[in-house]
């Protein structure tokens, strides 16, 4: 067999180019009528099934430019293309044609129209008729008509093997895409890698040269190999789907042949035909459980797996302003790449530079394990015995469904030397974390009646008017004082009553002594002085007639003055002939004199 195939290859390698060359001349002549057709096969495909868009150009065996295809992206995914040319000579007429096959996978249900394909050939632009494609879940892969390759679903398929279908959030799931075949698969290529949304994907390199093994499945022997392995970390709780992955495999097939010649040219004997086929794994649903809230440590940052924290410093004593390196190693299993940086409470007077992070992840095993190293450079700014507190990191152990914490040992550092003052000790502006309104007023409120004014307040009018009243009073008082000072007549008049009262009091003293003459003299002085002051005339030259005249001129009625002058006359007489009057009479006379003065004063005012 092998020998024959080889011989045929040599034969064709020599003969075919010669034939082709001899046909090149009439070919150019015949290239007049160009025709282009598009077809889709099968016209009804199952979901995730493969279909081919075939563009056939007759009359030319090459295109000027790659045909421009309509947009098919919303319902299909491009797999690949082949092209073939053919030459037919029938009755001396040579027909050349070019067939380009575009292979797609249907990804959405529905009936779609594939628009015109534009082909540029022989200096012309040709357009195909639109074709219709139906994607339906009703038809299954087997019922979609005969597969062009004649490969049955049970001959070649792919399974996504999932380590667990019920996991915690962020717990790794190992997915192996395993190909089962009973055919001769010559090559394969992964063309549609599952886009697993909602997962953090960590690619795991498969074993070298995909270990091929033999397995028996449902009584049938299969050749099987793992094509791809990934570890998925679910990012959140809920039911998640591990999306299917597609592989294009080239399979050597042997067709049912009709004749020996056919058999010869189709190459089943010598050139087993290479059929490309696309196989897709089935989607797998995974239930993702949320991480339990009770018992969650504060230092938990989301890692599910296992952790081990260790810390060390490169020396135990240091001078201030010298650098020390703190190495923090976090080892463990799980999604270490997504691990949040640890929070370390460095002593306040340490200057800390952002850590340098190195990572080594070992993916060789199904479990992703590895370590992360954080290297902090610390500069102590003040001397003393310093302690770097333990660094705690928590994780969730999915197997026991419990939280656990790993902590490093506290580290002692002896800092010697002088304190560095004014060093840039991490000073920074105060950062506003969030904006919020200022707090309510809690002090006593100044309550007012709505629509009320200041004038409603108690005491307003007192405060407003009382000083004004006081001011008016003061002005009156001032005016009075000024008159007393400047106007002698006014001053004497104002003084008259007081002086008269004083003299009457003197008279009462004299009366008790029993000297009648002195008594009347005193009363007379009081009466005279009073009127002299009131009328502002000299007391010495006081004449009763003049005074009477003056009083009349000032409009004092005679009734008021009569008693006064009567008293005055009585005093005049008593000075020369004092009557032997009793104490009662004298006292009564005093009263009369006082009343007479009051009467005159009233008359004057």
């Amino acid at each position, binding site marked *: 067999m092998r020998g024959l195939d080889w011989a045929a290859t040599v034969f064709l390698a020599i003969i075919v180019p010669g034939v082709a060359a001899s046909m090149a001349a009439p070919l150019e002549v015949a290239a007049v009528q160009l025709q282009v057709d598009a077809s889709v096969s099968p016209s009804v495909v199952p979901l995730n099934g493969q279909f081919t868009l075939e563009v056939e150009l007759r009359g030319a065996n090459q295109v000027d430019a790659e045909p421009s295809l309509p947009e098919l992206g919303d319902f299909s995914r491009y797999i690949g293309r082949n092209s073939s040319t053919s030459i037919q000579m029938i009755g001396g007429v040579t027909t050349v044609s070019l067939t380009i096959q575009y292979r797609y996978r249907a990804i959405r249900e529905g009936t779609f129209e594939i628009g015109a394909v534009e082909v540029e050939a022989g200096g012309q632009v040709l357009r195909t008729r639109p074709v219709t494609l139906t994607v339906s879940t009703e038809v299954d892969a087997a019922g979609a008509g005969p597969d062009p390759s004649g490969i049955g679903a049970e001959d070649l398929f792919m399974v996504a093997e999932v380590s667990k279908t019920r996991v915690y959030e962020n717990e790794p799931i190992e997915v192996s895409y395993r190909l089962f075949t009973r055919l001769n698969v010559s090559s394969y290529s992964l063309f549609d890698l599952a886009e697993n949304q909602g997962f953090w994907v960590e690619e795991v390199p498969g074993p070298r040269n995909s270990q091929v093994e033999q397995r028996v499945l449902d009584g049938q022997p299969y050749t099987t190999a793992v094509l791809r392995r990934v570890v998925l970390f679910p990012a959140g709780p809920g039911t998640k789907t591990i999306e299917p992955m597609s592989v294009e495999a080239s399979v050597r097939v042997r067709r049912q042949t009709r004749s020996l010649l056919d058999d010869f040219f189709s190459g089943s004997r010598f050139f087993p035909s290479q059929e490309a086929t696309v196989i897709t794994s089935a989607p797998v649903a995974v239930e993702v459980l949320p991480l339990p809230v009770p018992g969650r440590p504060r230092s938990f940052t989301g890692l599910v797996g296992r952790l081990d924290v260790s810390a060390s410093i490169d020396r135990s004593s240091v001078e201030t302003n010298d650098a020390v390196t703190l190495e923090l190693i976090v080892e463990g299993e799980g999604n270490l790449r997504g691990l949040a940086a640890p929070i370390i409470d460095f002593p306040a007077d340490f200057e800390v530079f952002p850590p340098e992070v190195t990572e080594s992840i070992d993916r060789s095993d199904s479990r992703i394990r590895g370590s992360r190293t954080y290297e902090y450079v610390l500069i102590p700014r003040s001397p003393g015995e310093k302690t770097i507190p333990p660094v705690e990191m928590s994780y969730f152990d999915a197997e026991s469904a419990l939280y656990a914490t790993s902590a490093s040992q506290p580290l002692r550092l002896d800092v010697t030397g002088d304190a560095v003052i004014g060093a840039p000790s991490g000073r920074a502006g105060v950062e506003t974390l969030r904006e919020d309104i*200022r*707090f309510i007023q809690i002090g006593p409120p*100044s309550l007012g*009646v709505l629509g009320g004014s200041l004038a409603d307040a108690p005491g*307003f009018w007192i405060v407003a008017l009382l*000083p004004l009243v006081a001011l008016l009073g*003061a002005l009156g008082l001032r005016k009075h004082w000024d008159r007393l000072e400047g106007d002698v007549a006014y001053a004497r008049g104002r003084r008259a009553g007081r002086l008269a009262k004083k003299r009457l009091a003197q008279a009462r003293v004299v009366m008790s002594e029993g000297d009648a003459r002195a008594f009347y003299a005193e009363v007379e002085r009081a009466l005279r002085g009073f009127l002299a002051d009131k009328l502002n005339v000299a007391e010495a030259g006081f004449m009763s007639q003049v005074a009477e005249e003056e009083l009349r001129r000032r409009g004092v009625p005679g009734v008021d003055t009569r008693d006064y002058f009567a008293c005055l006359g009585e005093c005049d007489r008593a000075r020369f002939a004092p009557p032997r009057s009793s104490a009662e009479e004298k006292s009564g006379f005093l009263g009369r004199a006082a009343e007479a003065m009051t009467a005159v004063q009233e008359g004057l005012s």
Partner: protein
Amino acid sequence: MRTVVFAAMVAIAMFGTPPSAVTQVEFYQEGNRLYQEGDFEGALASYLRLVEAGFESGEVYYNIGNTYFKLGDVAPSILYYERARRLLPGDADVQANLDLARSLTVDEIEPLPRFWLFSALDWWVGLMSRTLLIAVVAASYLVGIGAVLLLVLKRGAHVAVWGRRIASASGVVFFMFGLNLAVREFELGQAQEAVVLQPQVDVLSAPLDDETLTIFTVHEGTKVRIDRFSEEWAEVVLEDGRVGWVQVGVLETI
């Protein structure tokens, strides 16, 4: 002198709250307590009882604004902050919260530049709290009158010089701050302003119910000045000077 002392005592008594307000203070304190406990609904109800009883207070309005803000109602919080600002002009807390609340509204309006003299006047009017202002005005009045009384009644070179100095100084103070107080008490030159409380309001070019007249749209929390009324319509002026008509019902005057 005795008169002056008495007047001063009366002045101090005048700043006390009206007697019926004493029980109202309990609503305020209750509201504060609920606010601090995080019961904003309860605090709001308590504060509003005080307002419904016919009292006004810058502090209470400010707290109501805060409560609305915490409840997520930005537009009423702006309304109450504006009310608080009328009673407590120049209060930094009120201004800060008003600015924050305004930054959360939909409409971003660039205010027209103001003539510097108006800004200076505003600063002058809001310089001190009402209580302090009343105290200053009353004190300058009493001191001034006292100095004049002294000038009238006493004679002497010292008295004349010092009395005149004190009287003129307190006269100047009384005049300046008295004017300030008068502006605030009688709301002189204060335009009527309002806050939009509806989520979205079409502003029309005329006071007619015709959608085709819509010239622009404002959203809740926007402050407008009311220039005039025409039946149930109000002519409003935005801070950037744009003018239009809206239904009175969509506004709440400050």
